[in-house]
């Protein structure tokens, strides 16, 4: 198996159809396939063991991903927001490496660190001149297609391995070949070093839905591209959707989203008020909330458009609350909730989310985390309701143990977030002599809104119980998020220290 099959099939079927638009320039499936073959030949000749990409989304990303696959080398994109020393340590781990970097990054790579070092434009020029007419694609069953470095908030970044069979399992299991109409276009604004950036390329090419790349997200540019490129589909992380809605509210504009049919979001917890606002603001759009992890080759559960509309404003609280779920597991994966002893739990019982299926890799370089039966512990806490909807309650590692009682930050945050004066909130555990750990809340107020600490404590006491009341409450200007909208809880610990 090899992920290049996805591109091969698209190029065989409609070679002249536009696959990708970048800065207004179009590339067809046939052109990308030919360029990927040329890249594969150069990669093999270079003697490199890895292909790496240090830069923003561009046509070079797509060609390098498939070129690496055809050459039988793992594609290991790097986060271009890392510092130079952090980046260079990762480049060392990939040696000997064929490295494509944004032009401004090229001078930061130490001489000799890469076997081949090309800027994106140099790479595109090198593969545009043509390569072999045919290419014998390696079919190594255990081959690694993509290697993604974790954000490394705890020590050196870990290298998550996604094999050809995992990624192909995901795409073939969830996407219908060439199902997109010729006028469909998807706006990709997630970076290439993120699993959502990889799955967007693979899924869109297999569906034959034109990719429009937005290398640097801003709400104004996102809306402008939607209009200019008549975008029909898009994927955003929660902070992006929040910012898009804020931008629309602030500018009082009526953006041209007439072509937009489907908006998917994932990559973190979407605050309920944002979803509700989006549903009202874009009544014609089909919403999908996707839950997935790097180690699962992207989406494993999905709250679809009908589920969103059915839940929105439903008088039945059990249906209404589904808006806060991540939907049902994909038909191609199994999900189980287990307790600390590994015992399988029933409906509505909170535990750790385990997942199994062809797309699940659950593997880091040198360490496989799946058990003998293929189950991967996600380290996410959650439960399944009786109808099979999956509800998440944060990372297991973020659970606060107060006097022997397990408290999920999510349940307290949810109650506080419902207060009109609160824009954002995070609850963490801080050391306590009396309880071992106790709750601390960092609260961001809306502009010109005011609320007292006692008032907030009182809300939690009334809606939950006294053990859930944060002992410490502090106001803060903004919570620390990384560029993908992931809350950096560790940074907050320092705030309360």
């Amino acid at each position, binding site marked *: 198996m090899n992920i290049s099959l996805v591109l091969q099939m698209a190029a065989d079927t409609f070679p002249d159809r536009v696959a990708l638009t970048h800065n207004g320039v179009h590339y067809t499936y046939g052109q990308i396939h030919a360029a990927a073959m040329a890249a594969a030949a150069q990669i093999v000749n270079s003697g490199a063991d890895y292909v790496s990409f240090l830069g923003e989304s561009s046509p070079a990303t797509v060609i390098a991903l498939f070129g690496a696959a055809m050459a039988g080398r793992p594609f290991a994109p790097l986060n271009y927001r890392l510092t130079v020393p952090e980046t260079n340590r990762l480049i060392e781990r990939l040696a000997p490496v064929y490295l494509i970097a944004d032009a401004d990054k090229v001078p930061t790579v130490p001489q000799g660190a890469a076997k081949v070092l090309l800027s994106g434009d140099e790479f595109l020029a090198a593969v545009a001149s043509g390569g072999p007419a045919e290419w014998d694609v390696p079919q190594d069953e255990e081959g690694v297609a993509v290697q993604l470095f974790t954000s490394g908030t705890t020590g050196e970044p870990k290298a998550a391995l996604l094999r050809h069979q995992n990624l192909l399992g995901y795409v073939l299991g969830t996407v219908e070949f060439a199902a997109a109409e010729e006028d469909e276009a998807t706006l990709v604004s997630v970076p290439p070093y993120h699993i959502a950036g990889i799955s967007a390329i693979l*899924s869109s090419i297999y569906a034959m839905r034109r990719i429009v790349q937005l290398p640097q997200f801003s709400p104004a540019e996102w809306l402008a591209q939607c209009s200019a490129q008549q975008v029909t589909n898009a994927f955003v992380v929660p902070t992006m959707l929040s910012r898009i809605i804020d931008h629309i509210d602030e500018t009082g504009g009526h953006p041209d989203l007439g072509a937009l049919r*489907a908006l998917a979001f994932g990559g973190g917890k979407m605050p309920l008020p944002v979803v509700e606002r989006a549903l009202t603001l874009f009544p014609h759009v089909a919403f999908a909330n996707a839950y997935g992890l790097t180690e699962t080759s992207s989406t494993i559960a999905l709250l679809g458009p009908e589920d969103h509309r059915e839940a929105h404003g439903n008088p039945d609280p059990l249906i209404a609350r589904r808006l806060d779920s991540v939907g049902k597991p994909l038909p191609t994966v199994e999900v189980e909730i287990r307790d600390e002893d590994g015992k399988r739990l029933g409906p509505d019982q909170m535990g750790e989310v385990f997942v199994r299926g062809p797309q699940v890799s659950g593997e880091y370089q040198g360490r496989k985390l799946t058990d003998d039966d293929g189950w991967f512990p996600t380290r996410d806490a959650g439960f399944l309701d009786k109808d099979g909807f999956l509800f998440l309650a944060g990372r297991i590692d973020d659970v606060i143990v107060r006097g022997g009682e397990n408290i999920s930050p999510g349940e307290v945050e949810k109650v506080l977030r419902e207060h009109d004066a609160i824009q954002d909130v995070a609850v963490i555990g801080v050391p306590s002599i009396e309880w071992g750990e106790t709750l601390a809340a960092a609260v961001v107020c809306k502009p010109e809104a005011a609320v007292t600490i006692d008032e907030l404590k009182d809300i939690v006491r009334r809606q939950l119980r006294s053990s859930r009341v944060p002992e410490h409450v502090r106001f803060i200007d903004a919570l620390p998020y990384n560029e993908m909208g992931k809350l950096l809880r560790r940074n907050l610990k320092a705030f309360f220290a």
Partner: protein
Amino acid sequence: MQIKAGTKLHSTVCDTDVMVIKGSGDVALTCGGQEMAAARSAPAAELDPALASGTAMGKRYQNADGSVELLCIKPGKGTLAVDGVPLEIKAAKALPSSD
């Protein structure tokens, strides 16, 4: 012939190529009435007109009990069959795009 997930097979009577999505072990897999081959070769036999319903790019084909599933990665004119029983197109699951 021996198959497993990921095996690529070629028709000996038409252009059809398939990849095995599901199935393992010794399976009597034919296209247009002739056994499929692991290596591509020039058409070795005439296509039986009675077994020429054709294959469509990107469609999945499966047998009645779902133990064998193939993905058409190159279309052709022959009919895919296991143990002489033609395979059916597997209905597409309509999942919303999530990326």
